[in-house]
């Protein structure tokens, strides 16, 4: 039963990510409040919000189809699965070979398609608008994300995220131009995919500019709680993918249980900085007009492709 510790760790990590994800959102909100000279809410506020939402009665539109009601669960399931693939603490994940980076992008796409469909289910004008914009961001961000991941895949000769991380973690510390391009592209995709400024603003419900919020307008109570939680897991997953690709040092190797406490500390520090950085970006930048979003994302796509070509040209 050599697999057993691996499977135990796999389950442990997935549960850890799911439980820890709202803290990250709380931390980003806290940092942003400080940067904006406001007194910050508790870092645990997202948990209180989730608990509050779970206790409410769900209000559903009369003409909602079953698709509308299963979508929150599907979204949560997709994000949970994504959290299981990404090497957060260690690279010893027995489930990871079942889905590589292409499948990971596929999982995010599956979640996006379901949330867009659910948005159109009730037939309100905002739902359709949100779905359309969400898919617009999605179709531009998805190829850019895939190209970023391909750059890493070409460097390590594998599309397995665990293998990629192991290869990259063993490289000497130097700046690789291809990864530098990819990192910038990935940051832009992260902002867009997680509905962050400059593409979207997670704190407002302003009709004319909202994207992600428009798709979930009809949801309430436990459904909304699941979606918000899934969004938090998505942010956590994206940040850990970024860390795994571009700052992999410190992650525990397969079977090296003694390194886990260190890996945990290193991860916490990295996430602290990443969350603060995200809050900084969100404070310094203004939201882009919707039709500048394609330009923003096509820049990300071009950067990612450039990164890939750079790798072929200079082998670095």
């Amino acid at each position: 039963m050599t697999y057993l510790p691996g499977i135990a760790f796999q389950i442990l990590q997935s549960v850890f990510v799911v439980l820890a994800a709202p803290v990250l959102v709380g931390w980003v909100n806290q940092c942003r409040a400080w940067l904006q000279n406001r007194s910050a809410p508790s870092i645990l506020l997202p948990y209180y919000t989730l608990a509050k939402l779970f206790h409410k009665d769900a209000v559903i539109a009369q003409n909602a189809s079953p698709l509308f009601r299963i979508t929150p669960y599907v979204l949560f399931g997709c994000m949970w699965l994504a959290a299981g693939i990404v090497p957060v603490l260690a690279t010893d994940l027995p489930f990871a070979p079942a889905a590589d980076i292409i499948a990971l992008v596929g999982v995010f796409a599956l979640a996006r398609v379901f949330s867009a469909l659910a948005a159109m289910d009730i037939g309100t004008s905002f739902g359709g608008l949100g779905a359309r914009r969400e898919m617009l961001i999605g179709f531009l961000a998805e190829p850019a994300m895939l190209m970023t991941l391909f750059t890493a895949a070409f460097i390590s000769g594998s599309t397995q995220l665990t293998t990629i991380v192991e290869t990259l973690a063993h490289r000497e510390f130097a700046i690789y131009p291809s990864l530098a391009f990819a990192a910038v592209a990935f940051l832009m995709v992260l902002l867009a995919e997680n509905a962050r400024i400059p593409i979207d603003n997670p704190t407002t419900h302003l009709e004319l500019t909202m994207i992600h919020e428009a798709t979930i307008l009809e949801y309430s109570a436990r459904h909304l709680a699941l979606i918000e939680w899934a969004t938090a897991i998505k942010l956590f997953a994206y940040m850990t993918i970024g860390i795994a690709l571009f700052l992999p040092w410190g992650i525990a190797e397969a079977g090296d249980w003694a390194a886990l406490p260190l890996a945990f500390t290193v991860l916490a520090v990295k996430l602290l900085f990443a969350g603060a950085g995200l809050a900084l970006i969100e404070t310094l930048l203004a939201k882009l007009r919707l039709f500048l979003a394609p330009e923003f994302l096509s820049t990300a796509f071009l950067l990612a492709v450039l990164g890939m070509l750079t790798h072929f040209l200079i082998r670095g």
Partner: protein
Amino acid sequence: MTASDFIPSPLAGSLLAAVSWLAISVLALIPAGNAFIARRLAFPIGALVGLALAMFGLQAIWLSPNQLILPLGLPDLPFHLRVDPLAGFFLLLLGSVSAGISVYAAGYFRTETAPRLTLIGLQYHVFLASMAFVILADDAYLFMVAWETMALSSYFLVTTDHGLPAIRNAGFLYLLIAHLGAIAILLCFGVMNGGHGDYTFNALRAAHLQPLWATVAFLLAFFGFGAKAGMIPLHAWLPEAHPAAPSPVSALMSGIMLKTAIYGMVRVIYDLIGGVRWEWGMLVLIIGAGTTLFGVLYALMQHDLKRLLAYHSVENIGIILLGLGMSMVFIGFGHPAAATLGLIAALYHTFNHAVFKGLLFLGAGSILHSTGLRDLNDMGGLIRRMPKTAFYFLIGALAISALPPLNGFVSEWLTFQTALQAPVLQHGVVRSLVPLFAAMLALAGALTAMCFVKVYGIAFLGQPRKAEHLSRSPAVGHDIDAGEMERFGMAWLAASCFVLGLFPTSFLLMLNRICAYLTGRGLSEQALESSWLWLVPTSSEQASYSPIIFLVVIVAVTLLTFLLVRHFYHGRVRFSDPWDCGFPDQTPRMQDTADAFGQPIRHVFGPIYLMERHMPEPDDPAPRFSLKIEDRHWYWFYLPIARFAEYVSSKIALLQQGRISIYLLYSFFTLIALLVFVR
């Protein structure tokens, strides 16, 4: 005597199946008893024949090639038949997909009038049989006869509603481009033959071509078959002809007939011409990438459901060509393992596209049959009136959007894996170009997802957009969902989407055998040794994917979430009106339309389209926004050629003076010329 003595060999069995289809087509003509045979028997039996054909095809993939000479045709020019693994694969595709479509057709055509039904029964089964003969043919002569029969029978099926001028025009365009393609294929066989007079495929295979002539043969085959496949710039007939035909026929044409063109390409380029060069592969890649992006971008602009699906067929042919092109590039540089992977990706996508596009066309047919609607802008809320059709259509939509764990994802995954083999290439420019085609594929995949969110969201979700469809529950006893036969047909194809998506390893082994037969070498040992659970194209360190574990985990965590939420919290639900944002007079017309959904795409990719927009005046009491999108190819490609052809024929028409003396003079001069030059 054992039971196996009664089972014919794959070749004899396939021939028998094809002949049975011909027999059904003739029997369907009998008008007795309100066309009883065509109405009740022809299509279900046709479906059974399809199943049998699929069995023989499956068997043939694992056996060595088998030949047969039929003493039919012209004197000294008998028909040669042959079944090898490649033909077996396409027979499997034809048989299994057509079985689903035929069952559906049995229900769909039931309400037709007797004269129309008998004709449809005839043409439909001749069409099926001709496709089987295209795959079975082993000489250029039978191949062309079957190819032309296929074109003609499908032409008559397209023009089933020949009363409408638009449909007659669509049919004419189809026939024209089909024949241009057929001429190119005929010339290709001529070039390959090199004047030996022997047109069997064996002779063509043995013929040794000069590099220049091989390239000419390749170009003729690529564009000849490409005209049938619908690749740009020869695609113009496809979005016209596919919507014009009755829906089961659209499903056949889009799902299977386009694949015979892919069969032709693989057969001629890999098998008959041989010696694939990487430059050919680059051409295929460039045209494939263009076709993919063009198809999906124009699909996003359509609001006629069947036209939209037709443009998606163009896109998917592009994806298949991307796989083929990569494989040809790898062969050209001498990397058979990577080449095999590309060919497997292309063939896998060929099968996948047949399944999900067939399913989607059948779904569109059910909508058309039940509501009479084809325009997305008139639909809405159909999931509440046709829940079963909506369910099957959702599976098709998720599959074509290449979402895991369905089948579209597997073939796109394999295509990506092929592109990721690029570092082995020696040529620096090609090495960096191949991944760029993967970038295009990624873009097209994401756009497809957007397009099918649009289709599904607008047709099935939301509120009905037309007042007459507003009534929430159908009248008592009036179920507008598809009938049982139709549902069975769709369920068959939907189940195939799952099987192809969840058990890719067994298909990989099958396709590996075909590719090993064609290219002489299969995948690496490591790839084949992996267990059935893991799809491993090269080695487990490089890449692996396990759709079953994927599905199990995603279902498990989703269910777990559901149970946890239910366990810890109450499941109370209150129903109310949708939130109206403080504006109470909302009407269904305020929902997004298909055109509105495509608006961001028009904004981002504006220069690609030829748009004519009509914006209403601000004080217009009944404002209407109209938008016309045209295909630029008409203006730079088709119309100049048409004008040139008209110009040339008008000059030739000068010879026609309408006076008998002048015609006699022509004959006189011809005779003199013959006497002088041909002695």
